[in-house]
């Protein structure tokens, strides 16, 4: 029954990105993942009476940079507010965040959609706030609190409910990850909690000429792109089922929170006291507002670069790569730059792409490093590709050579010689061998000349014989051409 309903999925995202500053947002404590518990804490972190927070310039500028990349308007005047908070991981009893005058608003992000052009998703606002510490739930009647993360700068980004498929939600998350990594403002590692996504999900159902909106749920505890995508798909089905069962529709302003259970792949309703979320914002008197002027904004925006999706699209057009390949190469900025440098030395783009994506990135993964940390120079890779293009080594020989270049650090032509991967392309020399094979294999020769069903197979057999006789070192293309000429 549910499958017959006509519906649209409606999703907006609330995103937190941890900025990779050295120190915290309001004090000089180090931001450090995995430091021993409560070792990166000072009176400001603890909210001791009389302490004064002072804004980290880098955190503010990085926020403005991301907001600019997301096409947001940058507020000329911005201030911070206190939001009531009653968990022990923020001992001040409030979170310092931004309420009515966020540092940026009204932007958009373009996300790649498979088999279609990019989709534009509106950004409501992006503002700068502090993170809370960590509550650890051990067994027994107590919880443990570690305040190291308290005061870490977080950029909160809120999108309009413009996403209409689980795949779109995932695409936005991945695109944002690429953007903040390109800009160098966050490691954006989801497992480490550098990026947290909370989708707000409901459905617009059309039934018998009327429209119904299902109650909104917010999903928390999503630690991977996969979990994000699956939780949205799960909620879609759950809300459809719930609508068919109860017919309940959205009550304005209310929403429920559900937690993602990764083990069971379901969302679970989280218990919540009524009116628990009355945040009672009020202006933070201890922090001074920030005023942005044109010169400062220009200085910050000079750090903008070509964004990943623009680069991907350009790679498709300029180098005739598939969108998939272009996406792999533009996933990080250093890899994309290395690719372009290699192509700049005159190497054929498609071959460079294959070599880097099929061999280079595999080697980098095995070593748990980036492609550019393999010790390869773009010049050496370009020379290798040129050898393949000229037929001096085969494509598979090229792959082997790249692996050896990484392990030995030697030049491709030296290795090709050492590993006997040089192909014979000299047609005069190959012609002698071809003639010999043709004499020996008169049956196959007859089959090719008869142009019957067996002709193609026989020609392949002859090519194989030549390759075998040369110890695999003949250039198969040159041999094929010779065979075709002689058997025509």
């Amino acid at each position: 029954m549910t499958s017959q309903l006509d519906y649209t999925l409606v999703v907006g995202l609330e995103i937190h990105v941890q900025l990779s500053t050295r120190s915290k947002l309001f004090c000089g404590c180090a931001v450090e993942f995995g430091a021993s518990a409560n070792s990166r804490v000072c009176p400001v972190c603890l909210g001791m009476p009389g302490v004064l927070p002072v804004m980290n310039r880098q955190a503010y500028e990085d926020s403005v940079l991301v907001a600019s990349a997301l096409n947001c308007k940058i507020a000329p005047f911005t201030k911070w507010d206190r939001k009531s908070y009653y968990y022990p991981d923020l001992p001040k009893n409030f979170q310092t965040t931004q309420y009515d005058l966020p540092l940026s608003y009204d932007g958009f992000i373009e996300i790649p959609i498979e088999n279609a052009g990019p989709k534009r998703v509106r950004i409501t606002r992006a503002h700068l706030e502090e993170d809370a510490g960590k509550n650890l739930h051990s067994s027994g009647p107590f919880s443990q609190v570690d305040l190291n993360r308290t005061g870490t700068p977080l950029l909160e980004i809120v999108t309009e409910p413009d996403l209409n498929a689980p795949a779109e939600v995932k695409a936005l998350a991945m695109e944002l990850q690429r953007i903040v990594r390109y800009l160098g403002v966050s490691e954006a590692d989801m497992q480490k909690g550098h990026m947290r996504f909370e989708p707000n999900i409901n459905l617009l159902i059309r039934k018998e000429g009327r429209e119904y909106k299902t109650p909104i749920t917010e999903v928390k505890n999503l630690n991977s792109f996969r979990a994000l995508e699956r939780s949205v798909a799960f909620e879609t089905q759950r809300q459809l089922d719930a609508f068919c069962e109860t017919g309940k529709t959205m009550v304005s302003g209310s929403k429920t929170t559900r937690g993602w259970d990764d083990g069971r792949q379901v969302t679970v309703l989280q218990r919540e006291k009524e009116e628990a979320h009355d945040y009672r914002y009020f202006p933070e008197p201890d922090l001074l507002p920030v005023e942005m002027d044109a010169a400062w904004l220009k200085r910050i925006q000079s750090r903008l670069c070509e964004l990943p999706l623009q680069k991907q699209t350009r790679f498709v057009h300029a180098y005739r790569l598939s969108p998939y390949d272009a996406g792999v190469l533009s996933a990080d900025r250093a890899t994309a730059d290395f690719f372009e440098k290699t192509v700049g030395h005159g190497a054929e783009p498609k071959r460079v792409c294959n070599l880097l994506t099929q061999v280079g990135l595999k080697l980098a993964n095995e070593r748990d490093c980036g492609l550019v940390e393999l010790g390869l120079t773009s010049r050496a890779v370009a020379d290798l590709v040129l050898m393949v293009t000229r037929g001096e080594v085969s494509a598979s020989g090229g792959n082997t050579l790249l692996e050896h270049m990484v392990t030995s650090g030697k030049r491709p032509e030296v290795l090709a010689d050492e590993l006997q991967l040089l192909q014979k392309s000299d047609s005069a020399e190959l012609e002698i061998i071809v003639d010999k094979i043709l004499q020996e294999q008169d049956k196959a020769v007859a089959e090719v000349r008869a142009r019957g069903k067996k002709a193609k197979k026989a020609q392949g057999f002859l090519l194989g014989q030549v390759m075998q006789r040369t110890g695999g070192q003949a250039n198969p293309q040159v041999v094929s051409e010779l065979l075709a000429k002689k058997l025509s």
Partner: protein
Amino acid sequence: MEQKITESQVEKVAQLSRLALTPAEITEFTGQLESILEYVAKLNELETDHVEPLAHCLPITNCLREDEIRESMGAEKTLANAPQRDGPFFRVPKILDDHSGP
């Protein structure tokens, strides 16, 4: 400001602030809060139609610090005032219905 503060409003605010008040305290604080609000309401007598909204009481902006690390206090000092500790952690009553985090 004509509307007076009610006991149910005080009850709600107390609940939001995780304060357990007795009925006698609620009555007492309702009276106190009311007189505070009455006092502040005097501000409404001012003519503010042509006054720009003020986001901060100080006429200063852009007080920023460079992103430099300063030494923290260390876990021992951090935990010195903790009512209860559990190794290097603060120990608190078990958190039920945990919606912590921004």
